[in-house]
Every structure is written in C-alpha cells, then in structure tokens.
C-alpha cells in the first residue's frame, strides 16, 4: 500500500472517529471510553503476528508478553464495558410510584 493511501486512510479515519462520537451524552462517556479502550486491544493481532514470526528467545518472550497484555486489554475491555452497559439497561419499566402505596 502506498504511503499516500495510508495517509488518506488515516485522515478519513480521523474524521470518522471525530464524527461518530461527537454527540455522545455525558452518561455514556465512561462506557464509550471503555469500549474504545477495548478496541485498541486489537493490537493483539499485531502481537500474534510478531509472535508468529519470532525466533529468538528474547523476541518470543516479549511477543508472548505482548499477547497476554493485549488479550487482557481486549477481552477485559469488552467484558467490563458490557457490564457497565448492562446496568443502564431499561428494565421492564416500573412505573413511577408517586401516589399513595398503589403498588403495595
């Protein structure tokens, strides 16, 4: 891939990244941060790639460490985000109990 292509892809991705989150509500700041954090766990793919071609012990050790860290980042990130969002989930709405013990 030419460097121009890479640069173009980079520039377009910046715009997509900006636009896609620019209207998020405060409530979702933390889940969004956490989700984005999980997404950069995709470095796992890079870690596997380098581990897959590593031959010396030093390289292998470092690469395998990278795989472990990246996995934690990715898997943990998605799980914790899901847990946060699960709590937001609008349960089958309980009606506002504003009048005298109607639900008692």
């Amino acid at each position, binding site marked *: 891939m030419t460097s121009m292509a890479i640069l173009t*892809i980079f520039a377009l*991705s910046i715009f*997509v*990244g*900006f636009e*896609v989150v*620019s209207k998020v*509500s*405060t*409530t*979702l*700041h*933390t*889940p*969004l941060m956490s*989700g*984005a*954090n999980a*997404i*950069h766990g*995709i*470095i*796992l*793919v*890079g870690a596997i*790639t*380098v*581990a*897959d*071609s*590593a*031959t*010396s012990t030093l*390289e*292998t050790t*470092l*690469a395998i460490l*990278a795989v*472990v*860290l*990246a*996995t934690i*980042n*990715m*898997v*943990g990130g*998605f*799980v914790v*985000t899901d847990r946060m*969002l*699960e709590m*937001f*989930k*609008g349960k089958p*709405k309980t*009606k*506002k*109990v*504003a*009048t005298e013990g109607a639900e008692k």
Partner: protein
Amino acid sequence: MNKNIYELLGLLVAICFILALKGLSAPKSARRGNLIGAAGATIATVLVFFAPFAKPGDKHHNTALIIGAIAFGVLVGVPAARKIQMTQMPQLVALFNGVGGGAAALVATVEYLNLSAGGEKPSAAAVVATVFTVIVGCTSFSGSVITFLKLQELMTTRPVVFPGGRFLIAATLAGVLGTGGWTIAARGNTPLLVMGGLSLLFGVLFVLPVGGADVPIVISLLNAFTGLTVAASGYVLESTLLIVAGTLVGASGTILTRLMADAMGRSLFGTLFGAFTAKPQEVGAATEARSVKSGSPDDVAILLNYAQRVVIVPGFGLAVAQAQHTVRELADLLAAKGVDVAYGIHPVAGRMPGHMNVLLAEANVPYEQLVEMDEVNPTFPQTDVVLVVGANDVVNPAAKTTPGCPIYGMPILDVSQSGNVIFLKRSMRPGFAGIENELLYDPKTTLLFGDAKDSLTKVVSSLKAL
C-alpha cells in the same frame, strides 16, 4: 488464506469497530455496539492465525505458546472485569488501557529487533513509527498504573508535587526525545531500550501532579494515545486494520477527552500541562471552629415524612458506602407515603461520568426518577427537602461564588434554593476537590454524621416507626 479475502475480512472488522463506536454513543444502541466491537475483535483474532505469509516459505512459530498466552490473558481479564465493583471500574479501565499501551510498545520493539536481527534496514518512516509507539506506549503504561494507584487510593489522590518536579519532568521529556532522535539516527537496540525506560519514567512524572479529579480526563487522554500507538504499529506491520482501528480510537478518544473536560468544567490544557506548571501548594488550614447543626436519624425521618417533594442528591459517598439499595428503599417508602421523590443527578457526581446512573440502575431505581441537573435545578425552589447522600463538590456553592477555587465555573446542583438540606456524610472533611463547603454551615442545613448506608438504614427504620 487468499490474501484478498483476508484483507476484505480485515476491512469488515474495521467497519465493525466504526459501528461499535457509533453504537456506543447512543444509549439505545450502546450495548449492541459493544457486542459488534467484540465480534469484530474475535473475527480478527481468529483470522490472524490464517494470515497469508509475507514471504513464501515462511512458517508459523510458537502457535501453542500464543494460544496459551491468549487463554491466560482471558483467564486474567474476564474475572477481573466480572468481579470488579462498580466503584472501581474507572481504575480497571485505566489498567486495561495501560496494558494495551504496553502491548503496543512491546509489539513495536519485537518487530524492530526482528528486522535488525534479520539484517534488514527498516525504513526511516518505520523507525519513526516504532520510536513513537515505544515512547507513547510506555508513557501510557506507566501513566495508567499511576492513575490506577491513585483511584484505588493505594496512593494519595492529591496532586503530588515536589520541589524541582517541573524541572525533573522537563529533563525527562528532553531525555526521551533525545534518545528518540538517537534511536532514529543510530538504529541500535540500546538507544531503544534507554528510550523505553525514560518513557516509563516520564509517564509516572506526567501523572503524579494530576489531582484526583482530573484523573478520568487523563485516562481518557492516555486511551487516545494508546489508540495512536496502535495505528503506528499498524503502519510498521503494514496492517490496514490496525491503522484504521487505532486512528479511530485516537480521534474519538481525543474528542471524548475534550467532552469530559468540558462536562467537569476543567481546562484540558491546564490538566495536561499541570505537570509543567504545578507549584507545591499548602494544604489550607482547617476551619473547624464554626458551628454546624447536626441531627439524629429521627429528626431526618420527621423532616422527610412531612415533605411534599424530596430530591435525593447522590454522590461519591453513596458509591463508597454501597448504599444504593438502601437509598432506593427509602425513596420507595417515601413514595408510598405520597411524597414526590426524585433523584438529582449531577453529570460528574462520583468518580466517573454516569457513575450515579450506573449505581442507581444497579438498585433498579426507575429511570423516570433520575432527573438530570438541568431539569432538576429549576425545581429546587418547590422542593421541601434535599437529601444529599455522600455528595459534596457537586452541591458546593463555591463553584459559583469563589473565583479561583478548583471547581469554579462547574455547574452545580443548586440545592440551597430548597427548604431544607440534609447532608449524610461521615465527617467535616471536604470532598474530592479538597475545598470547604459553605453549605454545611448554612442554617437550613442538617448534618447526619456516619456512613451513608448506616445512616440511611436508621432513617428508614425511624420512618417506618412514624
């Protein structure tokens, strides 16, 4: 696997990530968005084992080890994510972010070693990208560890400032950049390792002077940085997927950092360069001498019982005391007695945005009772009693009245407009920002000292007895 198919699937994964971020920015689609992201990541991980080789004749190495490492990572990451308490989520996210940055730095390092070992001269652009990844990845790693320690209260949450600190930080930064230049020029392994070490130190020094209140902003910033390192690794490894995914996170993380800083009324610039400008501060002398009105659970119960409208303002103390279920019990009891009850939610109450929403949702508080700041503020004049449960800064009038104080300019819940204010807290200690709250001394304020959960339990039983 055929190269075209492989790359097409990579593009598909990149699109999943875009859809994930898009989903995560709207409440309805957030959970689905996260799942789409996870699906994309899973596809990518499985796929990479079938990646076509760069050179014909290459073969797989370490497959068993890699799978073992992934399994180990899952075994560490999932339980950590599952078992963590709500209140500790921010620091877990920080930690996850840190290990991601560390992984990126390692990947770049290994690829660098690999190329030099193979006798190949990596291109200048690739070396620059490697240097960038290692510097930012290491900074992100050590910085995130410090934020973790701060949030976990394993160290002080106050800004850590020491004489000469500014100088030390500047010197470290100069060292990082210098060794970076050295690496690019000399392309040896030693400069790279020295550079990595200095970057780790820089990360620590960078985050130390940040006050606890700004920590989430810093986490978000480091998160964006880690995204960029992933993009740079993608450049070195020639992976479009990593470039797109990393850039996406970098860009959205930057925007998010700014949005968060805005929501907390903080200046991003101040937060970032605090390290360079922070001067040692004296801790203000406590002014314990003034009188406050404290009450018993019975007093509070009576006040609540005869109110028409009660607004509950939860804050970080509610999370600490894990009192969300008890507060709901109280609210239900009051509602059953015909009192109009609502929760007034400040956007930065607690220690992460949306903290209170998450916490109260855990206790199944009906959505309709959660009222956002802008909507609840106009109703305070018609409110008889405001029950402040472990909140402090978010109701502190100093944000309006005292220019120069750390929270000046932050919008607050204007509880002083209501008839009575009850504070549930353990002591006269200030909140997160470390500043005195005048409202505690206001004649219409009643203080109920003690752990929020204990106090609420007592109030509930008094109320039942009435």
